């Protein structure tokens, strides 16, 4: 074996080790959650990589002791309505920001981004008053409404850059064909933006699905809570017991939809992130 071959093998070995480390780092917590959710009682505190007596008691308990199914439904309602509204608003805004030349366009783009820079806590109390005034307290609409604050800016930004990359001729061809801006946007641009819409929609969904602070503040009753809050408020049999098993079971239950969603849209997300890099 020559030195060169030896070196090449060493490099590929090192690369494999590095990849393995990254995968382990990323996946171990989730694996540990799955394993813990299948353990009960004192077994939870054994350091065993595989549960010796796997049981689904925790899963049953999660759904029995609180309206967890209702919480999941709430999360879906909030996340999906946030995505739908954010995409609709961002798409129309992106068309204007990406294609119509008007005074103060770049300033507006900076402001849009600036809005999303505020820490949640900073806007929390003001937003609370606003939501009380609108009569939306303890209502899922309060969450959809407040999530738009941080989803619309970044969806607008991503879609704006995407629309800017669409060939100018295409829009002008539509104008010459007599299409209104709305027709141009919906019939010419939108079909070409599938990947971008899927990618940004996916990101907005995850943000809304995982949000905790607003969800905790703007809801009061158990059956109005979303998943992250519900999980945080899971209680044990006594105040001295931390119900790790149930928490892990609940976490695994709500992570699964996200993982499935990402896998389904994976190809579209990647092509969405790559779009505009090369002309098709």
């Amino acid at each position: 074996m020559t030195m060169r071959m030896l070196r090449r093998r060493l490099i590929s070995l090192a690369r494999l080790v590095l990849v393995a480390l990254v995968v382990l780092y990323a996946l171990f917590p989730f694996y540990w959650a799955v394993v813990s959710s299948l353990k009960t009682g004192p077994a939870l505190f054994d350091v065993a990589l595989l549960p010796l007596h796997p049981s689904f008691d925790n899963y049953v308990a999660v759904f029995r002791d609180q309206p967890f199914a209702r919480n999941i439904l709430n999360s879906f309602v909030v996340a999906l309505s946030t995505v739908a509204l954010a995409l609709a608003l961002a798409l129309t805004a992106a068309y204007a920001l990406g294609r119509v030349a008007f005074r103060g366009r770049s300033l507006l783009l900076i402001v849009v981004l600036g809005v999303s820079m505020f820490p949640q806590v900073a806007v929390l109390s003001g937003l609370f008053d606003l939501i009380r005034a609108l009569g939306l307290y303890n209502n899922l609409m309060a969450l959809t409404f407040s999530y738009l604050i941080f989803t619309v800016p970044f969806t607008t930004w991503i879609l704006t850059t995407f629309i800017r990359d669409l060939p100018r001729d295409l829009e002008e061809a539509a104008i010459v064909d007599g299409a209104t801006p709305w027709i141009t946007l919906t019939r010419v641009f939108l079909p070409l933006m599938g990947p971008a819409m899927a990618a940004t929609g996916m990101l907005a969904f995850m943000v809304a699905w995982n949000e905790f602070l607003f969800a905790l503040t703007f809801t009061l009753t158990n059956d109005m809570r979303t998943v992250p809050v519900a999980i945080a408020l899971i209680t044990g049999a006594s105040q001295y017991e931390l119900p790790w098993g149930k928490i892990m079971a609940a976490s695994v239950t709500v992570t699964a939809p996200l993982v499935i969603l990402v896998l389904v849209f994976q190809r579209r997300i990647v092509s969405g992130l790559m779009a505009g890099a090369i002309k098709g």
Partner: protein
Amino acid sequence: MAELSLRHLSKRFGRHTVIDNISLDIADRQFAVLVGPSGCGKSTLLRLIAGLEAPTAGEIRIGGERVNEWTPRERGIAMVFQSYALYPHMTVFDNIAFGLTQTSMPRTEIAERVQKAADRLQIGHLLARKPKELSGGQRQRVAIGRAIVRQPRLFLFDEPLSNLDASLRTQMRLEFMQLHRELGATTVYVTHDQSEAMTLASLIVVLRQGRIEQIGSPLDVYEHPRNLFVAGFIGSPKMNMIAGRLEAADARNAHIVLDGGLRLLVAADAHHSSPGSKVTLGVRPEHLKEGATADALVATVVAIERLGSESLVHAKLPSAEMVTWRVVGSSAAKPGDAVRLGVDVTCCHLFDEAGNAFPPPE
């Protein structure tokens, strides 16, 4: 039935003037070609006519009506883009039909008209395909189909052939001519390729830096270029330009002496210029003849392009100016040969110091 007329049209982007006070009349059924080097404003002019840009000043009239404030659709124009700009997610049928579906036309009539336009362009069998499944030439036809299906008053073409290979370009050129003859719609066609302009146009408009240098029929522009720019731009290979001085002139003839010492009598009215002023003699490559005895330019052959039916000989004058001439068939000359060239003085062009052509003799 639409004549196009531009009145004192200007377009500025910031402080940069792209179109500078252009007035132009294009009669109904004309095939007008806007030609000029890149950056001369020809595409901008087309976009002003289309209604994709608003003029800074001036007036655009189509069919006698002022259309400055009208949308492209209201103007009744159709445009073929350089990139074709086909809608990539739509089938060929939907691409061609898109403009019609924006009207209240019944579906059956749309289908009929699309089919007719597609058959006319020999793409009738491709209607179910997507643009990415078509060749360059076929995409070009779809773009044309999209334009003709709407039966516009005015056709606008923005360098439609520049993305095609040479043989396809020649073929499409013929089809454009045929199409124009059959449809008879007024056409404005933009190109930087002077040979395209010569073959297609019934009216050539030569542009430079946002101004019209010359308007006329192709032969008129070729035979009577108004200035050095037009003379150099129209015609391939380029017109030979040889510097000289005016010795004496009346209303019919100009006596000039070239920098190499050759004296010529050129038919041109140069009597307003003073003797001794600088002039430029322009001679087309077909008006230089090898093997002259008297009154000849002496040039050293540098290179020979043998094109089969003809040869182009490139040679250097003692004054270091390059000249090119045409020889039918193949030339016997070899690089390094000294050749005596006769100048056909009846076909010469004479330009004054500012580069403007002297008027023909009275």
